[in-house]
């Protein structure tokens, strides 16, 4: 174990490894719980006198049920497509809006910036009723486009707000040099600013993707056909019947539903951290 000068093994254990271990347990426990619940037979699930953290006779019956008796695969595909399209759309709008608001000075830019942030604070539980009207008028009910066009109402304000802050950390001089060398505003943005802002853009993208992936209310209200549903809605519709919860299959659905998001995070975690916390040094 590497220790610094003046730092004992014991101190390192106390201030670093034990907290890290506790943090890891707290973070990974939900995944562990989902996993063991999904492979427990019903008799063990309902036996509250057995030790809950181990499985005596593991079974794949809940996994089989999830994949064979429900449309989980289709829901996963729907969710992926909707989350990807929504993320692209939101990032596109967010980048343009954030760039304009942070770089161009025009009448009302500050007010617009604040307004965008305030828009983000409007809860979706209030917005879904008027949005339902809009979606119905556009005849998009029960179509993935209903979600692809409505999720940005939540995502664009957040992306814009996040990216505005990030763009402000990029020195103007870099862009001005490019302009002096003959680049247009668009070229300077695309070739100079955006590559530097990649961590921020990735952060906004991961946030958008995760939120679209997990979103429930709009997906519940705007989609009705089983083949159109997303994972959060499909799993709840098919695996909660009255006051009976199919815990094993529900947890299998939750586990497989959370894996793609975890994979996305693992690929981009360093960018994500620097996007949220760091900035470009001038």
């Amino acid at each position, binding site marked *: 174990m590497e220790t610094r000068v003046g730092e004992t093994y014991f101190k390192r254990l106390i201030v670093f490894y034990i907290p890290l271990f506790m943090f890891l347990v707290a973070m990974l426990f939900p995944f562990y719980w989902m996993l063991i619940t999904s492979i427990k037979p*019903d*008799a063990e699930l*309902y*036996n*509250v*006198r057995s030790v809950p953290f181990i499985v005596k006779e593991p079974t794949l019956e809940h996994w089989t049920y999830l994949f064979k008796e429900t449309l989980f695969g289709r829901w996963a595909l*729907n969710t992926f*497509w909707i989350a990807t*399209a929504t993320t*692209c759309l939101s990032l596109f709008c967010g980048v343009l809006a954030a760039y304009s608001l942070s770089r*161009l*000075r*025009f*009448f009302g830019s500050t007010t617009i910036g604040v307004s965008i942030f305030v828009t983000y604070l409007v809860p979706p539980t209030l917005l*879904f*009723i*008027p949005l*339902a*009207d809009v*979606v*119905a*008028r*556009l*005849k*998009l*009910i*029960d*179509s*993935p*486009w209903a979600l692809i066009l409505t999720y940005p109402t939540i995502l664009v304000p957040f992306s814009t707000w996040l990216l505005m802050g990030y763009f402000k950390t990029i020195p103007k001089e870099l862009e001005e040099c490019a*302009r002096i060398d*003959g*680049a*247009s*505003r*668009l*070229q300077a943005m695309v070739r100079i600013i955006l590559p530097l802002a990649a961590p921020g853009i990735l952060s906004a993208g991961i946030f958008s993707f995760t939120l679209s992936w997990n979103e429930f*209310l709009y997906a*519940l*209200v*705007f989609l*009705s*056909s*089983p083949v159109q549903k997303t994972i959060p809605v499909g799993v*709840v*519709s*098919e695996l*909660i*019947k*009255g*006051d*009976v*919860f199919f815990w094993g299959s529900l947890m299998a659905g939750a586990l497989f539903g959370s894996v793609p998001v975890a994979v996305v995070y693992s690929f981009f975690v360093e960018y994500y951290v620097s996007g949220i916390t760091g900035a470009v040094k001038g």
Partner: protein
Amino acid sequence: MDKHTTEENIMPQQGLTRRDFIKTSTGVALAAGTGLSLFGQAPAFAQARELHILEWSSFVKPADVETDRQAAEFGKQEGIKVRVEHINANDLNARATAAVESGAGPDLIRLLSNGPHLYAKGLIDHGELIQEVGGEDIYPALRDAVHVDGVYRGVPYFSGGGAYVYRRDIFDEAGAAAPQTWDDFMTVGTKVKELGYPIGQSLGHSFGDPPGFCYTFLWSFGGSLTDENGKVSIDSQATRDSIAYLKEFWVKACDEGGLAWDDTSNNRAFLGGTISCTLNGASIYFIPKRNWTEKKDPFVWTLFHFLSPEGRAGRFHTFTGQNSCIMTYSKVQSAAKNYIRFIHKDENFEKFFVINNGYVKGVVPKWDKHPLWSWDPALTPYRDLANYGKHYGYPGPYDRHASEAWSKYILVDLYARAAKGESADSVIKWAESELKNIYG
């Protein structure tokens, strides 16, 4: 125009070339096309004639299968595509709200309880259908649920309610029989708790069991939230007496963790073997009956039900239904009406009734005489629920105010706070204030 903007305008413009534009727009078109082809549809502008029905996902799985089968059969007869969508019962209100407000969505929604009062503006007049289905024979509690300002905004399809499921082996060990009165229940509950198998009662925020217990409990002591005219009447000696009883009952007889339970918690506790009795629909009984019928596990054969204990004002049960409600925006209202007629035909309803195996009751008394009730003695008490059944507005009107009081769990919280130790005066004062905010 400020100085900066002016400078931007006089800078040499080297924007998108025509070639860049074509590249970009082609890429966007391809991406959009991929999405469209993958999902087979962009906005669907022209679709075949379809009847879209939205209802809960029943815990009696064959019941959903039978509903789908009947819908398909009706569709063939009527020459219309029928689609039945089953969703979690807790999510029906969000869908109904969006449908009514936007004027688009399912053609027929099976609204729970007195949902027709909440969504009346989006529902057609069902008066003609009500007469065909049973008219005055329909149980009053169910009729009130769809009767809004003199107009029937739905047709009750079936009704249900809770009874107390108990383990006879534990009761036998305690030397106790199914209780008939609340005093009996205190005695029985004390004994089974001493054996390590208390009564389990949910007092959390969940739509079924907690209100189902609290309302019937209060009524049986002679109390009520409002009087016949909808005037708040919670501050009464009857309410005080019920609170005094509950405080003692909670400590002596109940699993005190029930304060945090929802509708699923008592199922889990009962099937996990930690409690011996709880108020529930028949779902607890159906799970072991369906899954554990092997001789090696005789658990299911120890389960029986009894009706709500009697208090000084009598015996009460909550009795609510699921109502077929046709939306005003539906373009296939005629087919939707015929569908309701179809499912209420005796031969069709009987199939649905039988496959539910005692969970579902008919909306008119004739179904109480069906031989099904003698097939499984454990479920026979459910037959008599209607005799004691009242809606959540009782003795007042079953309108949107009653629904608001119910959905805010005011009575449930009254008892939960009392069980936690708050004084009767304090919780009654709080509940009265909340109720007056609703009823005015």
